[in-house]
């Protein structure tokens, strides 16, 4: 019993320290993935001669906002945002080109993975949803939509330095 307690204690210390580091490292990993998606899109647009296309500009702006907002995002934040019922931000422009649509889908999917698989709270929410019988693809789609909507909402502007954008500036 004493040895078991010792093992449990060591396990708790190890888990606590590992998670404390993980919550920093996962932001780096997410940002690196979003940078890869953003730069891949830029090269594709350059090769196609469409760098100034509004769809590319909007998609890039959205990806930049998602990169910036990443440390603030959690399942509680997106659930809070979803409860406001103030509507989704406009994604239409991003869907005008197939490349931008694919890039935004990849980014949204990565965001959902960041929320649902890489945090304890998100994972617990996901498992609880599964236990309640919520369909998995629908649940992930819903989180993707909510996460992107929260990051791209005007209310997310606090994630930006005030000097650059002004206190009332829109995040996107």
């Amino acid at each position: 019993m004493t040895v078991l307690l010792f093992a449990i204690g060591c396990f708790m210390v190890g888990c606590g320290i590992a998670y404390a580091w993980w919550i920093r490292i996962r932001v780096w990993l997410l940002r690196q993935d979003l940078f890869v998606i953003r730069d891949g899109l830029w090269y594709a647009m350059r090769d196609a001669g469409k760098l100034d296309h509004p769809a590319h500009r909007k998609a890039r702006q959205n990806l930049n906002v998602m990169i910036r907002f990443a440390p603030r995002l959690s399942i509680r934040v997106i659930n809070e945002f979803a409860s406001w019922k103030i509507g989704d931000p406009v994604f239409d422009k991003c869907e005008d080109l197939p490349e931008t649509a694919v890039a935004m889908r990849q980014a949204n999917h990565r965001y959902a993975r960041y929320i649902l698989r890489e945090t304890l709270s998100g994972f617990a929410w996901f498992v609880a949803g599964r236990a309640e019988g919520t369909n998995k693809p629908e649940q992930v789609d819903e989180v993707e939509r909510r996460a992107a909507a929260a990051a791209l909402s005007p209310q997310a502007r606090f994630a930006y330095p005030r000097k650059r954008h002004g206190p009332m500036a829109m995040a996107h």
Partner: protein
Amino acid sequence: MAEESDTDNDLTIRIVTVSERHKTARTVAICLTIGFGIAVVCTTIVRLVDKPPWLELLLAIIGLAAAPSGVLALLIRAIRRYTKRTAPLLAEAQRRDDSARSSSNLRPDGTDKPIA
């Protein structure tokens, strides 16, 4: 317009509050887990050994926390240095073809700028 701005501000404050509350709860949970774990380890060692080797015990606990933390801190530092070296070059190369290129607004080493 003023009402819309107030509403936006209220919602921004709410999202900041939720975000910060989540971070605080997470920090408290991590500290409690580590603290409780250390207490359990110390208690069991005291039970197992009549005269616990306190110096070794202390060094073991600090080592448990410090060794992986040191490795991970070095890893993050290496990533930051790599980003600081490569990101400006990439940005400069892209700016040659695309002067209107927008940025993620992070620091050159990939960390967040402070919010004024």
